[in-house]
Structures are given as C-alpha cells and as structure tokens.
C-alpha cells in the first residue's frame, strides 16, 4: 500500500509519505542496450534528478550525457505516471592528453549536478577528472523565416537580387533541444576530481579532488578559491585523501568533506579563508575486534549526502550506510548494514578489486528513507522510521511493465532457503553504484552497468 498518511505528532500534524517497504515498487522503464557485451563507454557513471524531478541526467564512461524528461501523464493511462524519454544527448567531455605528465585524462563523467532553474533553460555542471563544464540545455521550437540576406537553405542571396525588405517571422518547428557549453572551468585540479556541489546561494559551487577543494563562481572560469588543502608538505607523510564533498542545502557558508579514513569534516567558510581547520569532526571509533588487513579500505567513505532538511548527513562506506546528526560528532545516529555477508569475503574482493568500488547513497524527498546499491544488481532501501529494509533487484527478468519487484534475500547461513541466493552465487560484475531518488515522488533511477532502470510505486 502506498500513499499518504496524516497523523498528529508532537509538532502538529505531519504529512508522512509511506515509503520503502510499505511501498510496492514496480518496474517502469529500462534504458540501454540489452546486449550482453557491454561497451565500456556505455557504462553509466552518474545519475541525477534535477530539482523538480522533471529531468533525469546520466553520464557515462564515454563522456556523454543523456537527459531524460518526464512526460506528462497521459489521459489514456492514468494509472501510470508519465514516462521518462530522451530529451537531449550530448558529448560533454572528450579524452584529453596531458603532455607534461604523459597522462591520458579520462572522459568519464564523474558527477553531474543540476543548477536550480531560473528561466526557461536548464543548466547543469558535469565533470570528469580534471575539467568542469557548465552546460545550458534549451529548447527551440520556433524558427525564423524570411531572411533578407539568405535563402531558406542558408545560402547567401545575391545582394543585387534583393529588391525589397521584409521582417523575418517566427514559424513553429519541431522541438529541438540544444546543449551548449557555457563555461569551462579547467586547470584547477592537480588530482582527480571526485565531487562537485552547487551552493545554496546559486552563485558558487565547490569542486573537490583527492587533496584539495576549490570554490568557484559560476560566472568566473579563470580563477577559483582554494578552501581546503590537505596535501602534506612531504607526500611521504600522506595518510588520507578527500573522497567526497558537499555544500549544505541551506547554509551557504557550510560544507562537508569525507576522507578515506572514514571521517567527515564540516567546515564554515566564515571562519577563515582556508578551511583546513574544521568546525566539526565526525568520527566513529573503530571496533578493535573487527580489525583486519582491509580495515582501512572498508572504512573509507565513498559518498556523503546531506538530508534535504539539512539536519542530517549520510555516509557510505564499503559495508554500511551511516546517518549522522550534525549536532553529534562522536558517532552516527543510525547505521545500516548493506551487505555484511561480504565481511568474510574481503580478501577475494580485494583480489578482484571490488573492494575499491565506490557506492553512492541517496535520500528520498522527505528524508524518511535512504537507498544504496550492492552487487548482483541488488539495491537496498532502509526506512528510517520503521527500521525495516528491503533488497530489490534491477534485472531484465523482472522488467515487465508495472511488474511488482519481489524482495530478494541473500542467504548467509548454511541452509539456503528457496528464493534465496547464496553469497557465492552473487555476480560481482553486476554492481549498482549509482542511484537517484526523485525529489518529490516515489520514483527511483538505478544504474546497472550500462542500463538505467526506473522504478516507481504502484498507484492504486
């Protein structure tokens, strides 16, 4: 059962969206090739809804950005929300070569972040390892006709043939969506960019690489302010790197960044020009009994996301998701195990490099649920209120229109129940690293290698 529940809480009447396990998730669409042979360039590397949820952007390893638009619900099929169809496709980044270091710079899109919409056009930031670009996506549905100096096909007219002057008129045309790069923010990062985040002032944004965080103004491309620098004087003393950074959703002076050591630092840009000294330091003490060869790797944080309310933040490390209250630094308020059964397999996962996979996480619109990916095309959702969790699978088999997704379970004990899958049968090549939740509705986008799955809740 899905829907809205109204109840009276301490602070008055709340509108609570029942989500997660009470929601029956069903298949909506899948985008991408069915072919078993996956071209590396087609692997989706980032997924992001815009602020209204009308647009959904994906970036891939080939440097392309594909934007889907939510179609209006059709009157014929009211039980379906509208579908997402391709709105625009463009090549955002190309492979480059750094001649000084003899290094190839990958064109893979690491992150896409939308800007809040201010006019008819849409703007987004996309970044690869070194360069951030601001793209303007605009619609053109009119064309000027009746030029004086050129023909309809664009050829210049012979000036002596022009005997009269006319005013060109705008005629309707088939909708064309154009993407044009409006700004290119380059040469500011020595190390690989892992995050970009638009500030709530809508004028600035930050970009973070392994060792530094820079603050940019959207209008200014030839310089940026360095606000965090953790590069040690002697690189031999390097012990941690920055893994993710995000601006606070409401306080434009506040941002956080996570580290490979499993710590999060919250910084206030009003305190100093260089925010090397944090305002808050979030760290959970390590459990010494769980120490292993790989303790450092699995504690490295791969993603950090503020809640929409701005009161909480969520971090993802290899095996778990943690929710932190910004007012409490010494431990998270909630911890969810994503795939604890992998703890005994860490050595194999180290050998095949899966232990380095960087999973992302996301909040739903009301911050009552969180979602993150796993292996075997599984993804997990946790309801923060009921503390229930669910595991779902993004697969072609369960991709019939409006088919309800069946909860999946991984058997950890000796006996494998029916419908359960054993840990050793998991396909570690099928990993869900990128997921996104519509900001207002129960619609989710899940990237499974080269396919994008869209699921929504069943509307009765």
């Amino acid at each position, binding site marked *: 059962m899905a829907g809205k529940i109204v109840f009276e809480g301490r602070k008055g009447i709340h509108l609570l969206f029942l989500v997660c396990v009470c929601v029956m998730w069903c298949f909506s669409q899948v985008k991408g090739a069915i072919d078993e042979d996956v071209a590396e360039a087609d692997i989706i590397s980032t997924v992001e809804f815009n602020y209204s949820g009308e647009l959904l952007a994906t970036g891939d390893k080939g440097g392309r950005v594909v934007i889907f638009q939510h179609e209006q619900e059709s009157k014929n099929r009211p039980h379906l929300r509208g579908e997402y169809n391709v709105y625009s496709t463009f090549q955002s980044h190309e492979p480059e070569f*750094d001649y000084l*270091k003899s*290094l*190839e*710079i*990958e064109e*893979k899109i690491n992150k896409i972040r939308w800007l809040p919409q201010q006019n008819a056009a849409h703007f987004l930031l996309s970044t690869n*390892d070194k360069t951030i670009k601001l793209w303007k996506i605009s619609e053109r549905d009119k064309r000027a006709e009746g030029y004086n100096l050129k023909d309809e096909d664009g050829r210049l007219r012979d000036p002596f043939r022009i005997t009269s002057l006319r005013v060109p008129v705008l005629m309707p045309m088939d909708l064309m969506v154009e993407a044009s790069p409006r700004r290119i923010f380059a040469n500011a990062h020595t*190390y*690989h960019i*892992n995050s970009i985040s638009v500030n709530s002032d809508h004028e600035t944004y930050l970009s973070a690489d*392994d*060792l530094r965080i820079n603050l940019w103004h959207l209008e200014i491309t030839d310089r940026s302010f360095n606000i965090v620098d953790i590069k040690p004087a*002697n*690189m*031999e*003393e*390097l*012990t*941690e*790197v920055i*893994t993710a950074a995000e601006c606070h959703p409401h306080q434009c002076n506040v941002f956080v960044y996570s580290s*490979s050591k499993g710590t999060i630092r919250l910084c206030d840009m009003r305190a100093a020009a260089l925010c090397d000294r944090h305002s808050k330091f979030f760290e959970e003490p390590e459990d010494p009994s769980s120490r292993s*060869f*790989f*303790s*450092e*790797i699995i504690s*490295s944080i791969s993603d950090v996301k503020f809640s929409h309310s701005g009161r909480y933040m969520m971090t993802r490390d290899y095996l778990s998701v943690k929710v932190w209250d910004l007012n409490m630094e010494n431990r998270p308020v909630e911890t969810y195990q994503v795939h604890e059964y992998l703890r005994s*397999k860490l*050595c*194999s996962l*180290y*050998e095949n*490099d899966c232990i*380095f996979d960087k999973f992302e996480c996301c909040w739903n619109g009301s911050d009552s649920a969180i979602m993150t990916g796993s292996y075997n095309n599984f993804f997990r959702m946790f309801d923060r209120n009921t503390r229930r969790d669910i595991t779902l699978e993004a697969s072609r088999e369960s991709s019939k229109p409006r088919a309800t997704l069946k909860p999946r379970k991984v058997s950890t004990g000796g006996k494998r129940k029916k419908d359960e899958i054993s*840990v*050793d049968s998991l396909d570690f090549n099928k990993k869900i690293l990128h997921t996104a939740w519509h900001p207002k509705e129960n619609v989710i986008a899940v990237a499974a290698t080269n396919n994008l799955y869209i699921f929504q809740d069943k509307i009765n």
Partner: protein
Amino acid sequence: MECAVDAQSLISISLMKIHNSRTQRGGIKLHKNLLVSYVLRNARQVYIKEKYAEIYRMQQYEEVMTVCNEIQELNPLDPEPEDAEEEDLEVAALSCCAPLQDGGGKEPETSFYRSCCMETPGSPCDPFAGNGSHCNKTTVLDLDTHVVTTVENRYLHQDCCCSAPQCAPVPDSPVRKRKGDFGCCASDLEEVSDFSASRKRVRREECTDPNYTDTSNISNLISIFGSGFSGLLSRQADLEQICSKQALASLGAWTRAIVAF
C-alpha cells in the same frame, strides 16, 4: 571465493596492483594506491611478526638462558667494534622495486633512508637502537622475556640509514651483543637481503625476474621497508608509534613514486 589470506600473498598482490596502476588509463589513482599501501603495511607487519616468531622458535632454550646470564655482565654503553663485512648488496629487492620507482637513480632509495632516519628512536625497543654506525647488526630487546638478541648481517635486513650523515647515532640506547651462534638460523634466512655499511656501495642490478611471488623477492621487498622487529613489541603504544611512523615513512617512497606522475 576463497583466497589465501596469508600476509605473503597479500603483499605480492598489493605490489602487483601498485605496479599495474602505473599503466592504467587516466593516470595513477592516488586514493586507490593509498588504500593498497595500507594493506601492504598491514600484511608486512603480520609477515614480519610471523617471520620473527619463526626465528625465535628456532633458538635453543639453552641459548636463551645463556643470553640472560650474559645480560647481567654486560656494560650497556660499551660499543662494539664494527664488524665490517664488506658484502655486496644483494639487490634483488632493489631491482624488483626498480620498475615501481621509475628505474630512477638513487634518489628514491635515499628517500627511504631519509625518511627512516627522521624517526627518533627513543624507545629501547627501537630496532635501530644501538646501531649507530654498526648497521650490519640488529639488536633487539624482547620485552616479554627480556632477552636481547643480535642478529648478524646476512640473516636479517638492516637499513643502513645509520651510516648516513644525517642519521645521528644514538648514544643512550643500550648496545648488547649476543655471543651465541646463529648458525641454525642461516638456512632459513639467507635469502633475506641486507645493505652494506656504506650507501656508496649500493649497486643496482638489472631485474631479470620480476616475479613477485618468489619467496626471496618477497622477503627482500619486505626488508626494503625497513621494518626491523617492530612486530615484537608487546607494548601497543610503542608498536603503534614505531609501526605507524615506519609504515608511513616506507609508504612514502611508494606514494612519492606514485605522485611523481
């Protein structure tokens, strides 16, 4: 899905990863290599611990008792004359590191030494203690049994940073010499490399066999990191202090090579 969780294979796997990262598209990934170096450090610590435990077990009980008696008689500040064996450097370790260090000259090596020398060997448990200019011996104090052992050149690695000008000798540390015979250990440890007393004698040989799984190469590579006997220490704090500093110092050369790009 099973794999060998022993330190040695982890070390070789980790080194392969670091090596492969140099040819990966997009350049060396600092984050991944840092994490790999942590695994390398952890595995090395376990490996050294195991190795030393093995050596320790081989000793005869009588020898242990002999040493205990000798401890009573020794003058702690009496430095031993240098037993200079001018051995050639057994450079399998170095040469295996060569591709990882860009085949560079001595600079990367000296950075090892320099960083190792940065430490203040204040603790009596410091494996480098008492070596001053005697870098062909390693003296270790086992805090559990209060047994002091000195191991000769060829059996266990000794960084010769102590001979470098920037490395100050440590006059306060006790230098104790074991007069026993280590012959029984020779067969197990002869593959471990050592460095000659003088840096100038460091010679590089071409690496013909970049087979990281070879036991001797692994041991040599371990020795490169100059860990000494940190695994012995029973005091957790000292272990942390020395291991972390050493680990980071030794990590440094890798990240340095990595960051060179």
